[in-house]
């Protein structure tokens, strides 16, 4: 006998269940987003959410720990995920009104979140210093006329080429200037792919790369999105870009879908099979490490003679403070934001994988500790930053799937299932329909 009769056992079971539910309820009510003092000892606890790969996770976690060590009254709970998973988690957190205090914003969601009033304005946060930014910079940072997000890096569209391979194969890219145009690039890629010792192709098939497509559009007087949140390009504008890629693909200068295993190829897989790639300036930092024996260089996008003035642009990844953040946490959150954008110490830990610093002074200071690849990126972005630029507008609500749709249309064209004009028309219609539904 155990000394526990049936009645006693049932009471125990009922009691345990009740206690468990009580604990669960209390835990649910007392989640980390609930109170201003999430940690013990009077500490302010902030939740910080970001995305990336494992290396970025480790670097940012370390940097945030360093921040907490230097600011003993602020504890940070890191919330990390891979890019797609990050967006999914944010979506469910938003639905549950359980949004992190500070969070990065995926590019398709910038205006969607803005429309949903997720951002707290930042220009009244006393611990966040805007003094290093020019008036022009601050204007470009604004959404809806407010400083409510913090651009924390800059990247631009680039051509990234393998200088080691180019030298070995006797390839010389035209110098930046009149000779560095789209036609010259396509001819170079086609002739290279026809005859090179490593049987490399010129480039992966990447007409769906968003930043380079946007560069093409802006040179032709179109844009990705309009100020009033509509599709900013025509089927003809898109068609001209896809035609340029079709010429490459049909000439065998771009990898086939089979060779690169679909749209959006994995650089680790295709890097050894191409001369150059279309991408973002910051990608050189992680991508170059995959081929440590090779030297990679960056070029700004080719420019045709007829390109319109002000076509260059900068892309800013942004972070924000949650609109419902407890007032008692705002100053602490401001310190964290300030540490992210105005303090070169953090960059020494996280490096420049997210791009060149937005703060011009920090960008200058970063050169002192930047690696060779980071210096390559910093120099190119600095050059683009001085160029005259027409305004650029973020993706409107309802357009979050436009990149997936574009990849699908490009794929259908490459597979011969649709023509460039039909695919272009269909893409513009689908994106427009999504935007209309969201209005």
């Amino acid at each position, binding site marked *: 006998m155990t000394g526990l009769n*049936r009645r006693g056992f*049932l009471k125990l*079971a*009922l009691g345990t*269940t009740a206690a468990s*539910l009580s604990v669960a309820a209390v835990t649910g009510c007392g989640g980390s987003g609930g109170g201003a003092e999430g940690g013990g000892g009077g500490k302010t606890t902030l939740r910080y959410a970001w995305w990336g790969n494992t290396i970025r996770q480790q670097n940012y976690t370390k940097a945030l720990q360093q921040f907490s060590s230097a600011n003993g009254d602020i504890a940070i709970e890191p919330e990390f995920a891979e890019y*797609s998973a990050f*967006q*999914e988690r944010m*979506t*469910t957190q*938003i*639905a549950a009104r359980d949004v992190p205090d500070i969070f990065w914003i995926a590019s398709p969601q910038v205006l*969607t*979140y803005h*429309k*949903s009033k*997720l951002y707290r304005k930042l220009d009244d946060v006393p611990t966040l210093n805007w003094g290093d930014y020019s008036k022009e910079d601050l204007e470009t940072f604004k959404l809806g006329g407010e400083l409510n997000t913090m651009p924390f890096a800059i990247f631009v569209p680039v051509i990234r080429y393998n200088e080691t391979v180019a030298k070995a194969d006797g390839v010389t890219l035209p110098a930046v200037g009149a000779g560095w145009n789209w036609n010259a690039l396509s001819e170079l890629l086609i002739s290279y792919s026809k005859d090179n010792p490593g049987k490399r192709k010129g480039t992966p098939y990447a007409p769906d790369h968003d930043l380079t497509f946007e560069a093409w559009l802006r040179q032709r007087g179109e844009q990705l999105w309009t100020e009033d949140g509509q599709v900013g390009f025509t089927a003809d504008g898109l068609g001209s870009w896809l035609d340029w890629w079709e010429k490459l693909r049909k000439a065998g200068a771009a990898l*086939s*879908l*089979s*060779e690169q*295993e*679909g*749209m*959006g190829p994995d650089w680790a897989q295709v890097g050894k099979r191409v001369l150059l790639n279309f991408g973002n300036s910051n990608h050189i930092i992680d991508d170059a490490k995959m081929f440590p024996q090779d030297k990679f260089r960056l070029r700004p996008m080719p420019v045709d003679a007829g390109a319109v003035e002000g076509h260059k642009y900068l892309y800013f990844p942004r972070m924000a403070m949650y609109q419902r953040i407890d007032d008692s946490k705002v100053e602490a959150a401001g310190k964290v934001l300030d540490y992210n954008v105005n303090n070169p110490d953090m960059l020494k830990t996280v490096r420049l994988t997210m791009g060149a610093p937005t703060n011009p002074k920090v960008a200058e200071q970063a050169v002192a500790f930047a690696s060779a690849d980071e210096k390559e990126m910093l120099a190119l972005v600095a050059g683009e930053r001085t160029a005259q630029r027409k305004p650029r507008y973020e993706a409107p*609500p309802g357009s*979050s*799937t436009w990149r*997936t749709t574009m*990849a*699908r249309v490009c*794929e*259908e064209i490459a*597979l011969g*299932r649709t023509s460039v004009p039909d695919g272009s028309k269909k893409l513009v219609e689908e994106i427009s329909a*999504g935007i209309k*539904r*969201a209005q």
Partner: protein
Amino acid sequence: MLTDQERPVEQPPVEAPATKRPAFHLNRQGRAAHVFLIPWQLGFLLITAVPLFASLYLAFTDYDILNPPEWSGLENFRRMVDDDQFWASVKVTLVYVVVSVPLQLGFALLLALILDRGLSGLAFYRSAFYLPSLLGTSVAIAILWREIFGDAGLINKGLALIGIDGESWLQNPKTALATLIVLNVWTFGSPMVIFLAGLRQIPDELYEAAKVDGAGVWRQFAHVTVPLLTPIIFFNLILQTIGAFQTFTQAHIISGGTGGPANSTLFYTLYVYQQGFVAFDMGYASALAWVLMAVIGVVTALHFLASKYWVFYGDN
């Protein structure tokens, strides 16, 4: 021993005075059972029932997750009619169900028949064949599939040995779905184990009688094994059909969540996911999910109706 005739005639029990019992009277054991069921009931209520009925409501709303849902009536259902992606996903899913389920069940039955012949090391084979069922829907296996059927995968390396320059099987719209069907067929272990259990229930006397009557192996299979196994076949058919309608992980991993190439692996559940968690169109995603539930319900009902004509239970 007493014979039946010698047994005393049982007197009708004396009826106890009628007492009023509450409609939901539970004895002590019943109460105990309910106590132990509370965690499950709460789980069912909070994790299944509430979201289920919430999604039914959301199916009639325009809901982007970020803002409160707005009633839109039948708009989400009407939208499906003109949605090319919806129809593409329906086509892919139906082809997958119709082709992969019979193939998988046929393969599982074949292996079960072989294992039922008294092989030595049966336990090992049973475990080995069951293993893919455990792993088949995992991310690791989906990635393995990419390594096997990719451009530089094992299949193409094998073909290269005989001078055939193969392309990626996963990037060709004509073969991409077939590779996923192969993956599903490969996970035959679960129905195989059930078939094996069913085969063990068929009495040996029936086979002996059939042999005496001159039936060969094929006639024994057709006239003894299959009829007596029909309840098991029916059970597996229902389970595997429902599972096939809900296929998601493999397509998501292999196509990178796009359903490509050219929508050839755009499974219905993948499209529901795209609408809900990529496009934030949760109202439409909910409507799509309920249509799937209705279709599965109808298909299952049809299976049950048809079972009257081909499933033989022991008491028939």
